[in-house]
């Protein structure tokens, strides 16, 4: 469970003298764009240029600041941020800047992770009393100056507090989002936010200050759990929410060293913790509301992705063989019988139905709620099931178009919604 706190924590990066000097020199700002980074020297330059151009082009009359919150990069990421600049604005601007633009690159304090980087960005936003903020990933290759307008404008011009991204992604990209986080967020909180953990968000200064009142910075929120925590906190506390269509999301390939099960543990763990935090909110929700979308929607070309289904099936089968006794504590007898049969099924017959998958996720949420086994063991034992579900999804959608895949994800959400009443009953 999360607690509420006030003020900067003992690990606040703002306590450093040099940072305070920089901030007092800037005084106040209207718009802040944050870029969390860790060893992104090769890609962050493009992101910084896009942000700088976006701020100059769309907000020339606003005092703006770019904050790079770095996790101790050793490849010179912060140097790239300092050195990157647009020398000639004439190609992108029709008018000259009136207000100033500043840049800060500082290492954040606390647990290494994206959430800790965001915390430093929120603290700077509060210290400078900014009106609107945006955060964008440092490994983006498809970011354009328009992203900054799309993430900031709804906050500055239309009074929204939170702008979630909406992208066109490859059908096999964002599998945790598509199979777990999006259906759960939509079903539980009743808001159709398609990319709740997209990574690039816009939000008001008011919401940034609200985030800082929560004492979550020693939990999974300090790592990959930050995205779902930001989205859910905004929804559950009735902040005004919208989406911005940003086009294609193309980024660097996932760090091969990053552990999938750790990522799954942090994201799903944070999602389950939020269920503990807001039970009275999600239990009341019975329908899904459309969330307004800003930006002009268009089709985009996406990079192909190769998938080794055989290896995924092997991992699922290994999990079914070795982790069966653990799953027995969590899953129903029917689901266990189905999984045992599925493990023996040949590749062409391999199919994990939506009903089974939704039941698995709800059962894991209940096991976490009732503390059936150690939480880390519980969530990490979900990995082979997730891989099995992803393999089934890939097999079923091999020939499907983008729209057909969206329809399929929609059907999965309906299955989550159908099982929600019995889930609430079992939660009590």
């Amino acid at each position, binding site marked *: 469970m999360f607690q509420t706190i006030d003020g900067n924590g003992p690990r606040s990066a703002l306590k450093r003298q040099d940072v305070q000097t920089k901030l007092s020199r800037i005084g106040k700002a209207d718009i802040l764009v944050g870029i969390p980074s860790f060893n992104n020297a090769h890609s962050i330059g493009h992101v910084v240029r896009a942000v700088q151009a976006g701020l100059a082009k769309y907000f020339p009359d606003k005092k703006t600041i770019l904050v790079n919150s770095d996790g101790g990069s050793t490849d010179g990421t912060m140097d790239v941020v300092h050195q990157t600049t647009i020398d000639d604005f004439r190609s992108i601007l029709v008018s000259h800047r009136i207000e100033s633009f500043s840049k800060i690159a500082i290492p954040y304090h606390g647990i290494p992770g994206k959430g800790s980087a965001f915390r430093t960005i929120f603290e700077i936003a509060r210290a400078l009393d900014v009106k609107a903020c945006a955060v964008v990933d440092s490994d983006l290759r498809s970011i354009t100056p328009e992203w900054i307008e799309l993430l900031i404008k709804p906050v500055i011009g239309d009074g929204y507090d939170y702008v979630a991204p909406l992208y066109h992604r*490859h059908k096999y990209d964002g599998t945790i989002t598509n199979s777990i986080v999006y259906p759960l967020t939509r079903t539980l909180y009743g808001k159709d936010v398609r990319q709740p953990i997209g990574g690039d968000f816009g939000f008001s200064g008011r919401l940034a200050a609200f985030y800082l009142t929560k004492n979550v910075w020693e939990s999974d929120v300090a790592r*990959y759990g930050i995205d779902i925590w930001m989205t859910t906190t905004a929804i559950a506390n009735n902040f005004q929410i919208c989406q911005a269509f940003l086009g294609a999301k193309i980024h660097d*390939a996932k760090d091969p060293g990053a552990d999938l099960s750790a990522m799954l543990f942090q994201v799903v763990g944070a999602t389950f913790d939020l269920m503990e935090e807001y039970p009275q909110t999600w239990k009341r929700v019975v329908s899904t509301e459309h969330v307004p979308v800003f930006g002009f929607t268009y089709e985009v070309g996406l990079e192909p992705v190769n998938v080794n289904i055989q290896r*995924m099936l092997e991992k699922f089968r290994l*999990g079914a063989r070795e*982790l069966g006794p653990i799953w027995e504590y969590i899953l129903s007898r029917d689901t266990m019988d189905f999984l045992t049969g599925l493990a023996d099924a040949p590749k062409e017959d391999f199919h994990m139905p939506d009903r089974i998958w939704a039941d698995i996720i709800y059962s894991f949420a209940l096991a976490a709620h009732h*503390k059936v086994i*150690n939480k880390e*063991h519980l969530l990490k034992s979900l990995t082979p099931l997730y891989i099995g579900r992803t393999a089934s999804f890939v097999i079923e959608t091999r020939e499907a178009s983008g729209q057909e895949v969206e329809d399929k994800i929609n059907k999965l959400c309906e299955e989550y919604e159908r099982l929600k009443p019995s889930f609430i009953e079992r939660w009590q």
Partner: protein
Amino acid sequence: MAIKVRGLDMNFIQRILIEPLERFYEQFLTFIPNLLTSIALLIIGVVLGSILRLIFLKIFRAINLDKIAQRIGLFEMFARKGARGSLSAFIARLIGWIAIFIFAAIAVQSLRIPSIENLIERFFLYLPNVFTALVILAFGYIFSNFLGRAALIASVNAGIRRAGMVGRFVKLVVFILSATMAMEQLGIGRDTVLIAFAIVFGGIVLALAIAFGFGGRDIARDYLQRNVNHPKEQEKDIEDHINPL
């Protein structure tokens, strides 16, 4: 003469039969209260043991001890080995029996039999060692289950075919370590510390070897693909090339 013989007989009977009987009677009279006290203590022990068993059973159920045991992996021992009842019932029964045992020991001591008193005194002096050894064993079992399960899940997620064996190995090593520490506490096998050190050191070396193996597997795979399996390019894995978030 007849009187002398009769007097002698009387003395003989007095000395051989009556006096021992009188002494036995006196001792018996002295022993009776001890015996009665002892029986009373035993009965109190049995009653108290039953009451304690019921009280602790209720406390354990109130604090959901069985669920906690399940979370830390202790439940598996009971489920797999088909032990009667739950962990809370087992511990409550154990507490009841300990109470009965303590009262039984006090009851025996209250008989005031020197040899038994001496034996019980030595036993009670040794008891803290037994208790400490049991605590070490219990914690060792809990840790072995916990770490064994963690190793099993990590191995499965890393795609190790013999994941079950890795989990069982870790569990066994941790339990053996705790068992050697418990034996050391009981004074059995003075060299066990040395053995335990050897096990721990061997375990660390093995762990480092495995860690190095995992860390370098991509390098090894790339090397083998380049030099041995060059024409047959492996298909890329979804985990390595797309962002699941």
